[in-house]
C-alpha cells in the first residue's frame, strides 16, 4: 500500500506536493483532535460513574432505632440488629447489621460494632467471662470494649447512641475500619 501511495504522490508536480503535505498533516491533527474531544466526553461520565464509589461523605449514616429500652436489661450485653439505612433492594440479609448493646446502670449504654478491630471478624460476647472474643486471630476485649489481648490495635468500635421516645437509637450505616471508626 505504502509503495503505491508514494508512486501516486510522486506523479504530482512539486507545487501540488507542497500543498498536499500540510493538508495531510492538518487532517491527521484534526483526526487526533476530534478523537481527543470525543474521548474526553466519553471518559468524564465513565470515570464519574466508576469513581463515585470513592465518596465517603454521601450521608450514609443516620439514626436507627434498636427498639424499646426495655429490651435491654441493666448490666447486660445483648446483640441487636438494624437494617442498614443505605440499602439496595437486592442486598438481601447482608444489609442486616448486628451490634452489641451493653446497658450499664440506668440509661448509660455502649454500642459496639460486631467487627473486631484487627481484621473485621465478628466478635462474640461471653456472658460468663465478660469478654468479647474473636474467632479469627484470637483478639479479646473486656466488657467495656477495651482491648484485653491478642492482635487488635485498639478497643472495639463504638457507635454513637441516643435515647428518644423510650427507644434506643444507634448512629450507624458504615462498615467501621481503623481510619473510619463507626
Amino acid at each position, binding site marked *: 500500500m505504502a509503495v503505491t501511495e508514494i508512486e501516486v504522490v510522486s506523479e504530482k508536480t512539486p507545487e501540488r506536493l507542497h500543498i498536499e503535505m500540510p493538508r495531510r498533516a492538518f487532517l491527521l491533527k484534526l483526526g487526533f483532535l476530534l478523537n481527543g474531544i470525543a474521548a474526553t466526553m466519553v471518559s468524564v461520565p465513565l470515570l464519574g460513574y466508576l*469513581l463515585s*464509589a*470513592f*465518596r*465517603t461523605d*454521601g450521608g*450514609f*449514616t443516620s439514626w436507627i432505632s434498636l427498639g424499646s429500652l426495655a429490651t435491654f436489661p441493666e448490666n447486660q450485653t445483648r*446483640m441487636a*440488629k438494624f437494617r*442498614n439505612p*443505605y*440499602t*439496595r433492594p*437486592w*442486598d*438481601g*440479609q*447482608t*444489609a*442486616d*447489621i*448486628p451490634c452489641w448493646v451493653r446497658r450499664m446502670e440506668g440509661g448509660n449504654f455502649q454500642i459496639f460494632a*460486631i*467487627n473486631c478491630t*484487627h*481484621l*473485621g*471478624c*465478628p*466478635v*462474640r460476647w*461471653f456472658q*460468663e*467471662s*465478660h*469478654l468479647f*472474643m*474473636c*474467632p*479469627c*486471630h*484470637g483478639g*479479646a476485649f*473486656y466488657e467495656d470494649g477495651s482491648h*484485653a*489481648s*491478642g*492482635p*487488635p*490495635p485498639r478497643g472495639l468500635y463504638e457507635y454513637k447512641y441516643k435515647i428518644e421516645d423510650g427507644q434506643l437509637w444507634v448512629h450507624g*450505616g*458504615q*462498615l467501621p*475500619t*481503623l*481510619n*473510619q471508626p463507626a
Partner: protein
Amino acid sequence: MIERLRKIAIWIDDRVYISKIFAATAGHHVPRTSGSWFYVFGSGTLLCFMIQIVTGICLALVYVPSAGQAYTSLEYLNYQQQFGWFLRAMHNWGSNFMVAIMLAHLAQVFLFGAFKYPREMTWISGVVLLLCTLGMAFTGQVLRFDQDAYWGLGIGAAMAGRVPLMGPAIVHMMLGGPIIAGETLSRFFTLHVFVIPGSILAIVSLHLRLVLTKGINEYPVPGKLVKKETYAEEYEAEIKKSGVPFFPKAISKDLIFSGLVLLGIVFCAAYFGPAGPHGIPDPTQINTAPKPDFFFLWLYGVLSLMPDYMETVVMLTAPFIVIGILFAVPFISNTGEKSPRRRPVAVLSVLLILIVLGAFNYLGTYAPWSPKMEAWTSAATPTNYLEGRSPLERQGALVFHSKQCINCHSVGGEGGLRGPVLDSVATRLTADQLVRQVIQGSGNMPAYGKNLSPSEVAALVAFMGTLHKPTEAPARDSTRPRQASTDNKQPNATAQMASTKR
C-alpha cells in the same frame, strides 16, 4: 468428490492462512532438549484456564450475582440443576489445580533460568498472569457468597482500611458502598467474569507470542553461560542443528500431563464434590469462624502470628515488595549460569519459600491462634483430671470450663491452643503465680480479676495445682519452707508415689 473437498480446503487455507499460522505456532521448532517432563507445567496451567472458562460460562448461566439471591442460586446449582454440583466442583478443583500447577511452572522457569536474557518480558508477563490468577482465586471465593465470603470481604476491607488518609475511600471503592452488600458482590462478579479473565486472555496471548518470538528456554547445561553478545546466535544454531517441531515431536509429554491434569480435576470433582456454600451470608449469624481457601491459608497464618506493632506496615508494604522482587528477578540476574546445579542460592530460595509457605499453610489448617469458641460447652474434662480430686479442685475444673478458660487453653488434648497447654502448668507456676496470672492476665491473656469471685479463683487455682505428671513435682515457692504434703496436695501424684514406694 474428494478432489472438490480438497479444492475447498485449499481455497479456505489460501484465504485464512491456516497452514501458515499452524507452521508458525504449533509447528515451530524448539530445542530437542525442551521436550522434557519439566516443561509441562505451562501448558498444564493453560489447560486449567480453559476448563475454568468453559465451566465458568456454564455456571454463569444459572448463578445470580445478587447479594440477596447468590446463595440460593448456589444451592440450586448444587441440588436442582442437573450436573450443577459437578460443574461447581470442576470449577473449584480447576482453580485449585491451576494455582498449584502455575506455582510449579513458576518454580521450574525460575530454577531453569528461563527468565534470563532475552526472555525478561516472558517472565514479567508470567508474573502478571500469576497476579491475575490469584485475583481470580480471591474474587471467585467471594462469588461463593457464603459466610466465609462475607467475612473474607470484611478482612479485605479491614486491611484496606488501614491505609493512611485514603483508607476509608479505598474501602468504599472496594465495597461499592458503605457496607458489604449488593454492590460489593456485583463488582467482584464483574472482576471475576469480565475484567480479570479478559486481561488473562490478552496477557496469555502476549506470553505465548513471546515464547514463539524469543523461543522456549533450552534445557540448561551446567557451565553453559548466557552472554548477551552470543546467546541469540547460539540458540539459532541449536535450533538449526537439533530443533524439532513442537507439534508433533515435543508435545507428547505436554499432552500426557494435560490428560492427567484433566483426569485429576474430574476425579477430584466427582469424589470430593463442590465446595460449600457454607452458611448464608447473613452478618447477624455470627457463630462462624471464617477461613480462607487453601491458597490464602498461609496469609491467614502470617496475619495471626505477626507482632501487632509491625502489622499495618507489613500488610501495606509487603505485597508491593514481594511483587516488586518478582518483577525484578530477570534484572537482578540477567545473564550467566542457568542450570540449577550451579545456582545454589536460587535452589535454596525456592526451598525456603516452599517451606515457609507450607508451614504457614499447615498452621492455617488448624489455626492454633484462634480460640475454640465452643470448647467451653463441648469439650470434655478428662476423667483422670477429676479422679480423686477434692470438691474444691473439681469446682475449679467447672470454673475452668464455665469461664471459657478452655476456649484458649487445652487440658488433656481438649480446648483451644491460643494460650499455653495447661496439662503440666503446676510444674511451671506456683499457686501464688497462678493467682496473679488469672487475676491480672498478661501479654496475650485477658485479666480475669473483675470477672471471677475470690472463691472461684481459689477453686480454679486449686484445680490447676493438680495439673502435672505424677512423676513431676509441682513448682514451689523457694522463699517458703518446704512442707511435705500439706500444700499443693496431689491425690494422683501421692497415690502413684505411694505405689512406686511399695
